[in-house]
């Protein structure tokens, strides 16, 4: 009997050991050598008085392979451990990074970049112009590229054919003149091309290193070569990353933070508890928590270049009628939506292009354009009466939204506004995120809540969505040759002022046609500890940027 028990105990012990060893506590994975390095700091002070920035990620990290990855979380990490030719500063202006300077040809089509002297990869090897060419080609090649390839192929001459597998690498106009000089030729004048070089898909790669790692590239922290302000010291997709200052970084004297941790926390309430416990330095708030913290000195908001809007389908009744479209476009007040319902720092939209998006001569696009669509109930009523008369009967209307809370709330808001202001009943149809996209693509909707997040800091990112011939059903069958001409003219125009004027006209045109109804510009509320400063977030592309962050 006793022997039998001993056997069982051994078995239980064995299972326990296997389980504990298999469960990857991240705390146990820190290497002993690192701990001896910081032996001077007292152990229990690790929480407070140190130079570690503690941030959170709201989901798992899908992919750190820069040429393939497509999600904001991966972009945000890569932006701090890698660096492109330029880096965006706090005003979203590109500042020289790997590049020292650039020259633009007169027609705006050829860019010559000069790289800095003495820039190195984290293994000490020099960074050359070829590292950029190799990476950019990789980001376009059908075998190695992801769905962000278009951010290169749309601009770089020969890129589209190469990406389609129809041309060789030689036909792509990226030329390495010498180790420090890179010449790129563009399809059309692109005033924001330098901004683009700050984006993740444009970061360089070390050919030798990537080929050596093969399939394993970017799967672990030691299978990536870094050139940014920080390097990764641990990487677990489900737990997060840890970073350390990069000793090889060219501008390391201006990097004040020694260590950064970004941990995966999916529950906003958990993140908030961790923030309260001092385990996080910054936390984004759910709408429900905003009122509690609104008056705290740690409370801040930021807006994104992401616009939510109603897309009317002009191929479906009743929205083939101009008056009905215009009636529904004017009959709601976005201010109520942002202040009462969303309550998260979002701003009401009276146009398509987001607030603060670049215009020309230091003025933003919105400042130049002003408000295009302001709610006007009286006018809406007039349009409605006229439209109903033309149709001969009151139409049945369905609004399609995605099924997440925010989209559903937006739908309910519109429903009640139309009821209140026009006396019109509309029905709501909710579908899962990708279901809504499929339905819209099939043109099987009357009106839908859609959104678009900018890829770069220029109004073109919004306005060429409606340009023929791409996805007519998805874009509400807005077919207007005048609009196409304006957008096309803007694409080939080298004079910045004229180009922006084309875009301003285009925005006005589509809004006054009543094809889209602007709702709001997405915003976020967050808390940030007062001793933390200099975390730069951009309203588009890769965020945050921790290069200039400090912690007292």
């Amino acid at each position, binding site marked *: 009997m006793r022997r039998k028990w001993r056997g069982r105990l051994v078995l239980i012990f064995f299972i326990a050991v296997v389980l504990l060893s298999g469960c990857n506590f*991240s705390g146990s994975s820190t290497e002993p050598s690192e701990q001896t390095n910081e032996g001077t700091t007292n152990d229990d002070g690790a929480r407070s008085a140190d130079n570690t920035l503690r941030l959170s990620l709201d989901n798992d990290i899908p992919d750190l392979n820069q040429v393939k990855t497509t999600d904001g979380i991966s972009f945000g990490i890569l932006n701090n451990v890698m660096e492109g030719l330029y880096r965006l500063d706090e005003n979203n202006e590109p500042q020289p990074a790997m590049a020292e300077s650039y020259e633009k040809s007169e027609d705006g089509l050829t860019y010559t970049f000069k790289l800095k002297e003495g820039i190195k990869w984290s293994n000490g090897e020099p960074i050359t112009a070829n590292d950029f060419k190799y990476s950019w080609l990789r980001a376009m090649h059908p075998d190695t590229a992801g769905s962000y390839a278009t951010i290169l192929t749309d601009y770089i001459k020969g890129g589209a054919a190469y990406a389609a597998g129809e041309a060789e690498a030689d036909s792509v106009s990226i030329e390495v003149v010498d180790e420090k000089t890179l010449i790129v030729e563009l399809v059309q004048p692109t005033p924001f091309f330098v901004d683009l070089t700050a984006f993740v898909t444009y970061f360089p790669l070390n050919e030798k290193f990537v080929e050596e790692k093969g399939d394993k590239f970017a799967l672990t922290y030691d299978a990536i070569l870094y050139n940014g302000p920080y390097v990764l010291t641990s990487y677990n997709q489900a737990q997060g990353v840890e970073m350390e200052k990069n000793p090889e970084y060219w501008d390391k004297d201006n990097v004040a933070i020694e260590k950064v941790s970004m941990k995966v926390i999916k529950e906003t309430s958990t993140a908030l508890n961790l923030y309260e416990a001092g385990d996080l330095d910054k936390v984004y708030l759910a709408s429900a928590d905003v009122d509690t913290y609104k008056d705290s000195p740690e409370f801040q908001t930021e807006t994104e270049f992401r616009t939510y809007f109603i897309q009317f389908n002009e191929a479906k009744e009743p929205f083939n009628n101009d008056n009905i479209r215009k009636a529904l476009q004017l009959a709601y007040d976005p201010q109520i939506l942002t202040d009462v319902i969303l309550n998260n720092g979002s701003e009401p939209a009276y146009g398509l292009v987001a607030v603060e998006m670049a215009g020309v001569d230091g003025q933003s696009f919105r400042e130049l354009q002003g408000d295009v669509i302001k709610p006007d109930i009286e006018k809406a009523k007039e349009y409605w009466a006229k439209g109903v008369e033309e149709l001969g009967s009151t139409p049945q209307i369905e609004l399609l939204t995605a099924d997440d809370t925010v989209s559903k709330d937006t739908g309910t808001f519109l429903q009640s506004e139309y009821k209140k202001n026009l006396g019109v009943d509309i029905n709501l149809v909710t579908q899962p995120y990708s279901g809504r996209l499929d339905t819209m693509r099939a043109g099987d909707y009357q009106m839908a809540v859609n959104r678009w997040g900018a890829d770069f800091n220029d109004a073109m990112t919004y306005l060429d*969505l409606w340009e023929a011939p791409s996805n007519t059903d998805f874009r509400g069958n807005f077919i207007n040759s005048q609009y196409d001409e304006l957008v096309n003219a803007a694409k080939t125009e080298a004079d910045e002022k004229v180009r922006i004027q084309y875009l301003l006209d285009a925005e006005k045109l589509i809004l006054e046609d009543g094809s889209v109804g602007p709702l709001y510009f997405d915003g976020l509320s967050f808390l940030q500890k007062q001793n933390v400063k200099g975390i730069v977030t951009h309203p588009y592309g890769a965020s945050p940027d921790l290069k200039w962050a400090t912690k007292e």
Partner: protein
Amino acid sequence: MNKYLFMRLVNIVITLFIIATATFFLMKQMPGSPFDEEKLSTLSDEQRLEFYARYGLDKPVSQQYFLYMKTLFQGDLGESYYFKGQDVSSLIIGRIGPSALLGVQAVILGFTIGIILGIIAAFRHNTMWDFSTMLVAVLGVSIPNFVFAALLQYYVGLKLGLLPVAFWESYSSSIMPTITLSLMVIALIARFTRNEMLEVLQQDYMLTAKAKGVSQFKVIYKHGIRNVLIPLVTILGPIVVSLLTGSLVIENIFSVPGIGSLFVDSIKVNDYTTIMGLTLFYSAFFVLTMLIIDLLYGIIDPRIRISGQRSE
């Protein structure tokens, strides 16, 4: 016995095959694709299909099914669409550890406390002991575990600072999730044990044992618990499976890098291979646990030893 085992294993393979087939076709009915559809919406339909073609997703579903089954029979679960460049099998192995640790601890804790509470309640039938134990049991079943988790996190983690609020950094990180998960088990097992024990106590053999002068502890241990265990083993199976395969809510609240949230997320992003891999993994785990439990019956209760062919 061997023949029985063989038949069961054949059954398991057929079951898994049916599950794989059904899941595959149901999964393909979901709208969307594993890619960033919002970005793809800027492409023309032609370009979009070209993009799908790179991953073989432009083919008819039936053809995709045969291709998947072919690789599956070679023992390959394929590569994740979302976690690019990673095998589904290594993804599962990487995530199962934390979930399994929480599950095992919750089962052990839940069963130990549950059985003890149940026995106390049965032996002190209709006393304060009984009532308070059953009150705990009712609360345990009726309080949703995420509410309990949030309370625990707020008071024990944040206000008292006794345990880490969240994360998976040391063994102490596993304590609060374990307690949360075991609450339900304690409640279930306590009620169950109490009712069974009350019935066992009425049995003649218990009276006989007492009449023989066997001590009360021995009566409970040798005759009581052993008989209570049989029905307990029946509910053990589902509990073990659900706990070991992770709980989405608890894992998210305590930021545990487990398998429960992986499953839900993979469905959200249409990560086909991961959905298939996890479904098969869950199913295989479930049917195998059921098999083990059926075999366990024989050990606990000689009366139901299968087909009675074991030579003893």
